[in-house]
């Protein structure tokens, strides 16, 4: 860790957080400082996810913070969830991704759509990190258009038969369970819980990524997998189910991206005050100040955006389109901040001694997953015009 982490709070947003939110923030920040920062660069370089993070995130309570205590969560509000995501992504998008998936894409659907039995069986173990979960929606032929998914479940009387393949699945190779979305005999999208060890279920790893290198990514392959009927999520039918999960995850990403950006900004500001050229700190040059001032402006706007979104989410008023706008804006902001602040460090900025390149490469995934940058713009476009521009088929729906 080259510099102490003192993130900017230019508009005194701390005054809008409760004391509890600040305790949450300092706890997660301390964990990141102690557990993540000493090893994350090496983990990313080696393309490895340190598995101990799962147990430690569970002990910290970063899995399912808004899930009620009786199911192993902490019963916190959505701003607390956002604050946790920001601190984790300051460490690395891989760590935030692990917590996002477990919380928003696995625990959230089981809590929201699951039976009481499913909640009791899975949620406490997912909260503690004893079980790792993953989420299967995207397919090799269907990314932005999940409604055309090919994965199917066939009713066999006393069980379902699952066939199909999912791709780009965070944590699939190490997961114990997968929340999978598949179409039933009526063509309706259903959610189900597949368990590792079920015959015909495999999860090969996707290697050679240039991004999220400290995160495990893979596929889910289902070849006539027998799914007991009690593993179907009873509370939802249709594409709305996975989209509600994505909403929760995108909300967390909008907060998380701020952490990656503030890590880059904090590093560049301190470096620019120390590094001298022409006998003066490079921070004294206008072109460096421009980069820093613009980065801080964009970070401050992003902080305000997610804080307001958090208030709306706590009130149950945050719309999917508002969440799309924040996810899109904040991830692009973070990516630009990473690129610009990398330049302030000159050649040093490309080394693993500083975090910019790692964040920048990670953010290329973050700007693509959970709805691509383009798709989020179309969501806003559809919201303001009332006209869906996703494609001819979508238009005619």
């Amino acid at each position, binding site marked *: 860790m080259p510099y102490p982490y003192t993130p900017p709070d230019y508009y005194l947003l701390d005054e809008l957080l409760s004391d*509890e939110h600040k305790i949450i923030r300092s*706890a997660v920040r301390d964990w990141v400082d*102690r557990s993540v920062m000493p090893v994350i660069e090496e983990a990313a370089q080696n393309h490895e996810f340190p598995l101990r993070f799962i147990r430690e995130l569970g002990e910290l309570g970063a899995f399912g913070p808004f899930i009620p205590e009786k199911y192993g969560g902490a019963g916190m509000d959505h701003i607390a969830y956002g604050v946790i995501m920001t601190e984790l992504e300051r460490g690395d998008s891989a760590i935030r991704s692990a917590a996002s998936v477990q919380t928003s894409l696995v625990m959230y659907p089981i809590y929201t759509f699951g039976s009481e039995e499913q909640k009791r069986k899975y949620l406490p173990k997912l909260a503690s990190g004893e079980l790792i979960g993953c989420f299967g929606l995207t397919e090799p032929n269907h990314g932005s258009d999940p409604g055309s998914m090919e994965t199917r479940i066939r009713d066999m009387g006393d069980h379902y038969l699952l066939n199909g393949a999912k791709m780009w699945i965070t944590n699939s190779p190490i997961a114990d369970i997968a929340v999978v979305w598949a179409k039933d005999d009526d063509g309706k999208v259903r959610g189900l819980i597949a368990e590792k060890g079920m015959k015909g279920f495999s999860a090969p790893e996707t290697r050679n990524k240039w991004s999220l290198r400290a995160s495990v990514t893979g596929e889910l392959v289902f070849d006539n997998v027998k799914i007991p009927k009690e593993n179907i999520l009873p509370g939802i039918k249709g594409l709305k189910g996975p989209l509600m999960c994505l909403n929760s995850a995108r909300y967390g990403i909008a907060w998380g991206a701020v952490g990656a950006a503030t890590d880059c900004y904090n590093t560049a500001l301190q470096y620019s005050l120390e590094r001298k050229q022409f006998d003066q700190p490079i921070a004294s040059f206008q072109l460096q100040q421009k980069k820093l001032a613009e980065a801080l402006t964009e970070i401050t706007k992003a902080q305000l955006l997610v804080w307001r979104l958090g208030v709306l989410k706590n009130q149950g008023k945050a719309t999917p389109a508002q969440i799309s706008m924040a996810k899109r804006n904040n991830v692009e902001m973070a990516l630009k901040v990473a690129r610009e602040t990398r330049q302030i460090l000159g050649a040093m900025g490309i080394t693993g001694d500083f975090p910019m390149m790692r964040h920048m490469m990670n953010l290329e995934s973050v700007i693509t997953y959970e709805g691509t940058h383009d798709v989020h713009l179309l969501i806003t476009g559809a919201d303001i015009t009332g006209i869906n521009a996703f494609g001819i088929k979508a238009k005619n729906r």
Partner: protein
Amino acid sequence: MKILVCISNVPDTTTKIKLTADQSAVDLANVQWIINPWDELALTRALELKETSGGKIEKVTVMTVGTQSAEPTMRKALAIGADDAIRVNAEPQDAYFTAQQIAHALKDEHYDIILCGIESSDYNGSAMGNMLSEFMELPAVSSVSNIEIDGDQVKVNREIPGGYEVVEPELPFVAVVQKGIAKEPRIPSMRGIMMARRKPLKVVEPAEAEALTEFVRYEPPKPKAACKMVDADNVEELVELLHNEAKII
């Protein structure tokens, strides 16, 4: 058996300290507050002792002298695992004042072990713990780097030059602890933070007490003087500068 841990509410150690315009006080605007690092380690050790005591230690209480603004720090101590908290509602002035307030608030309470950090990271006065033992008329052990409970006996390691001595103080006693007391402070879990909401935090009004010291003025350290470089081969110039300019030889 009960343990009390005295907690000081101090600025985060990464805070850039600024002074007010007249230099009569520290500008506390936008300062993040934390548990004094020595006190946080003392709390960690107290919780370790409780957890391994097989029920013998019934509770760990944290206590501070501070205004309402110190409550988040106390809530954090509760989130880390303390069972309850006491806050004496007064602005701490100096060690004498603070020790008097704690002694007064504990007049009708009984704790077997009272832990105080050896100093606080704001003013580093290193006086409160020993003053407290004097006011409470209790034995004190200073520079404590370990505490073990063995049956009814408490064994305390006290750092001395070249090693440590093992002391078996009579209970109750005050232990003034230093950094080796616990490996690293505990990080509160999210569930701990939520549980802290429901734990008791008692506020007691301060006693009549005086401070014996007064902060008159603060001065930031002078900026470092420019460094003069001397060629490694030029010993004569070095000696000349040390003799005539630095006047140290």
